């Protein structure tokens, strides 16, 4: 019963936020003024979707009441800390103050792009072409005299609910699932008041939550949650589009048609929207090339889904899928470079040839990634635990649950190297500590979620016989 309520709450929150993101972005793109009614309508839409949603009851032993009580108290206590930090002052760190808060104020005053802040090239606007989901969510709440910054503790709660939900959906007993969720909940970087944390006002923590929600949807086979999680991921920050593309690639490799379809269409739709908006902002409102972008995005989606169906009919194995992905890789990189408008690269003057020469920096970047992810207190054991789980699964020959999520996590590693390959070399030492922790932060939710799902022992013979044939 509690599980069903939790899954419905997660869906309601995601549908409401995605509704505001998609409709609001489209409205801005049409050069209109986003109506205040969008907020209550999106909340009603979320509640309606949750009421219609029929999630499965969680298998496995339920959580004892006393333990559930402790867990809820700890998680709500942590959320209260974040809420205090978020509401007591405006953002107290660089990006939160200079970019995210300012745009939220601008959209709260007038939720349209047709104003000098966005349209006058002489007016100073930092990160002019960034997606506007978070400022729009905050701005619309402020217009209703609601504390918009409660979005940050809400994103934290969504993140914990996604991790717990993924573990329980995979049949992990209530007691153990709660232990995992509690451990994740106190991950230092999620609770700290530093730059990039939940109440810092940056977009990174919310992105972590949307990614985890998408991971929960992919793991539990909950297609609406997967689609909404990916829509929000793409609309949150420029990194969101490559992250979503990599989940599509992982689902492709593991050949799950239903989840692949949902992820591909959500990525194509949100990608069209976010790139069209980016172009509109960069060109100060010149007619956006959205029909071309939509045509390209949905043609690519058709190729992915058609290719998947074709390989499925031929009974082709993973090797063919990997070959297909490798063939698509140069096209994907070229398209990403062409449309990223400098968002994947921190220095647009660095050309492709220089970046290739900088491949020699990959071991240095990998070492920094290991040092920050594993040896730095900020992440606790968030990345150590999944590595230990991999060892146990391998030694006990236990089948991996949600292998697509594991693949997704692995595919994030080369992506996280990219900003450093494009950065000015002399800045690498300074650039790594400022950028890398935030990139790693994005993956923490998925890392916890994937590890929490794993059974840690081979299935008993009778349960193996009754097991589901596919579980991406």
């Amino acid at each position, binding site marked *: 019963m509690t599980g069903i309520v939790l899954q419905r709450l997660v869906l309601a929150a995601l549908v409401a936020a995605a509704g505001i993101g998609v409709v609001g972005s489209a409205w801005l793109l049409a050069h209109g003024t986003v109506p205040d009614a969008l907020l209550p309508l999106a909340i009603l839409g979320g509640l309606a979707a949750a009421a219609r949603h029929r999630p499965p009851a969680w298998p496995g032993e339920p959580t004892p009441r006393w333990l559930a009580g402790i867990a809820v108290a700890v998680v709500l206590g942590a959320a209260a800390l974040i809420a205090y930090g978020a509401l007591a002052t405006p953002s107290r760190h660089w990006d939160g103050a200079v970019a995210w808060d300012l745009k939220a104020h601008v959209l709260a005053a007038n939720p349209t792009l047709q104003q000098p802040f966005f349209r006058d090239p002489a007016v100073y606007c930092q990160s002019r072409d960034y997606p506007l989901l978070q400022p729009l969510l905050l701005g619309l709440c402020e217009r209703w005299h609601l504390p918009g910054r409660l979005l940050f503790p809400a994103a934290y709660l969504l993140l914990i609910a996604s991790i717990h939900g993924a573990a329980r959906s995979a049949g992990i007993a209530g007691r153990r699932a709660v232990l995992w969720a509690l451990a994740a909940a106190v991950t230092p970087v999620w609770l700290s008041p530093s730059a990039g944390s939940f109440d810092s006002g940056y977009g990174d923590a919310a992105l972590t939550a949307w990614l985890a929600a998408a991971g929960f949807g992919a793991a539990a086979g909950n297609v609406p949650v997967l689609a909404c999680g990916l829509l929000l991921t793409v609309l949150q920050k420029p990194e969101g589009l490559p992250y979503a593309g990599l989940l599509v690639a992982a689902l492709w490799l593991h050949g799950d048609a239903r989840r692949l379809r949902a992820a591909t269409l959500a990525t194509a739709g949100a990608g069209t929207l976010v790139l069209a908006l980016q172009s509109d902002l960069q060109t100060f409102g010149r007619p956006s090339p959205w029909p071309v972008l939509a045509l390209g995005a949905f043609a690519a989606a058709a190729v992915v889904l058609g290719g998947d169906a074709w390989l499925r009919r031929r009974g082709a194995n993973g090797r063919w899928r990997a070959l297909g992905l490798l063939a698509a890789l140069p096209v994907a990189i070229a398209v990403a470079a062409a449309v990223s408008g400098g968002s994947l690269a921190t220095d647009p003057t660095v050309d492709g040839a220089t970046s290739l020469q900088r491949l020699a920096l990959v071991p240095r970047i990998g070492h920094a990634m290991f040092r920050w992810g594993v040896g730095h207190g900020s992440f606790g054991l968030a990345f150590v635990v999944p590595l230990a789980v991999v060892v*146990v699964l391998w030694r006990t020959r236990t089948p991996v649950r949600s292998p697509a999520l594991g693949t997704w996590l692995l595919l994030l590693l080369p992506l996280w190297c990219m900003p450093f390959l494009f950065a000015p070399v002399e800045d690498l030492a300074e650039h790594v500590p400022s950028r890398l922790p935030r990139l790693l932060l994005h993956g923490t939710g998925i890392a916890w979620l994937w590890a929490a799902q794993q059974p840690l022992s081979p299935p008993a013979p009778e349960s193996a016989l009754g097991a589901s044939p596919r579980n991406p």
Partner: protein
Amino acid sequence: MPSKRWSLPILLLVAAHLVWGLLRAPTRALVRRAEQVGTFQRLGDAHYLFAQSRLEGADAIAWLRANTLPEQRVPWQGSDRGAIEFAAALLWPRLLVATPPGAAEAGLVATRTSLRLQRP
């Protein structure tokens, strides 16, 4: 039992992370956050943000806030990275408008690490 033998180290790791996180929370999450909030409220947004980022020019922001109208445009010139980023946020709803170097009307002159007022 293979199940316990292998799952126990993992559960111990998870428990260690949990204990570590719970022990850190009161000092790192609560005290540090309360200190940040207290300092922010004591110094005010401009002085807090400039001091925390090792920038100079919070007084220029305070002067402009006190001596310009909210709907006014504030001319500026200089570096578009660093201190000017805070100026745009802290002066809202005033808009910062770029002027060519040396223009007599320049209100704010920015370097990466500082802001100063330039009156014609």
